[in-house]
């Protein structure tokens, strides 16, 4: 009986090990459609997502940063991750379409919050909010062919900084994908518009959403005062919107705003949209 218990406990772990790359040689030569590069604090949270992607026909591999750093051991951490991705892109017989980075980034690496660093570059020529002089980009990791900035892999990041947050975000993704596509909310789009940008929100509505027969929920600055607008934005998210377009300005503390606030970070905790998770196509 004891042996059987041990076997049953080990069984899930054996399955998990299939995704994780554990040797330098396996980093250099492997194959995948979907590659996860993660800070080792979050690895255990990612197996449900790996299983989901595998169940959809993708070959999944996962690499932890300590092995990446020790295998590609020249230069700063960003360069080591990039060296690994170059190896993947140039030599893996089946190279990934998708790369998922897991871990938040922070420009100050002494804070303990820089789990998976971003490449930092001097700013572009246009003016930056708050006088920022640099920007951090993940696109750089996907620039693997030629000297241009066009990405060669489809890259995304889960900006998590604790294991519970990683588990929570993965659970949301898996739940979102496993729920059937039913309900009017999947055909609903929420548009937020500051007065100076409302015209663009209206253009999106007439060009894409109306012809598709989608339901559009608008929150325009002209409709009321900040308290009304914040409540209306919140109500729209809670009712469910497949896509959310903030067509407005940003702010600090974090907010979507024009001359009035349309939605504040303080409103986030009041959301109860549960299974009706939205995708934000934003700007700031």
């Amino acid at each position, binding site marked *: 009986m004891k042996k059987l218990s041990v076997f049953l406990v080990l069984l899930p772990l054996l399955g998990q090990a299939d995704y994780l790359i554990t040797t330098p040689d396996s980093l250099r030569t492997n194959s995948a459609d979907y590659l996860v590069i993660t800070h080792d604090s979050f690895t255990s949270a990612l197996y449900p997502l790996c299983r989901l992607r595998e169940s959809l026909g*993708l070959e999944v591999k996962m690499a932890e940063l300590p092995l990446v750093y020790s295998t590609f051991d020249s230069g700063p951490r960003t360069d080591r991750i990039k060296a690994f991705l170059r190896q993947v892109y140039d030599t893996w017989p089946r190279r990934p379409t998708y790369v998922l980075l897991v871990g938040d980034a922070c420009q100050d690496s002494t804070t303990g919050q820089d789990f998976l660093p971003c490449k930092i570059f001097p700013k572009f020529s246009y003016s930056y909010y708050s006088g920022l002089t640099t920007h951090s980009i993940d696109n750089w990791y996907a620039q693997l062919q030629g000297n241009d900035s066009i990405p060669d892999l489809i890259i995304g990041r889960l900006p998590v900084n604790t294991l519970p947050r990683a588990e929570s975000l993965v659970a949301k993704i898996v739940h979102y994908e496993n729920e059937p596509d039913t309900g009017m909310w999947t055909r609903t789009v929420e548009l937020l518009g500051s007065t100076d940008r409302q015209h663009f929100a209206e253009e999106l509505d007439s060009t894409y959403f109306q012809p598709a027969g989608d339901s559009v929920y608008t929150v325009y600055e002209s409709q009321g005062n900040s308290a009304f607008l914040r409540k209306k934005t919140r109500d729209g998210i809670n009712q469910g919107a497949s896509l959310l377009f903030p067509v407005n300005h940003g702010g600090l503390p974090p907010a979507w705003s024009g001359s009035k606030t349309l939605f504040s970070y303080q409103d986030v905790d009041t959301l109860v949209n549960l299974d009706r998770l939205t995708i934000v196509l934003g700007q700031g």
Partner: protein
Amino acid sequence: MNEYLLELGKGGAVACVAYNPCGTETASQMLRKEVLNSVYLEGERILGKAVFAAKCSLIARYPTQDTLYGPAVLWTLLGDPALRIKRPVPTSVSEDPDRTPTPPALRVSPNPGARTASICYSLPRSGDIDLTLLDVAGRTVRVLASGPWSAGDFRLRLDDAGLAPGVYLVRLRSEGQVMTGKVIIE
């Protein structure tokens, strides 16, 4: 704001696409229209592919105007790049109930600098395809394959004869999905 929405334990957002940290209004409008072109007009359901196509398009079209290519470089997907957008599939690209989950695939290699590039594409099922070489303005340069196509793995050699040096995009449309690859002619 976006990270607050992602962090919310239940509810909020499942993915956010945003600048990191700042872009321009013109580029923001162009990027979002490109994403909607993919999702609403071409039936793309993978969020990362729609974002990828938008970024590629802007960066390729405006390689020296950093007010346009810069924001495209900065536009960052916070979330799973393979996330399937929860939207009913339009009737024009309705799904076959027997369809297996394996998606079509496109790969361009070796490049850069080679006299020829290999374009490999996999079609899990037979159906209409459109494989086109585009210039950076999105104009068709060559139609490489078009019409009904059988399922299988295919390789095509792209001869650069007649092509001016520069960056080109290879676009495969199949099963309501759009895939894009890059070719550099030197």
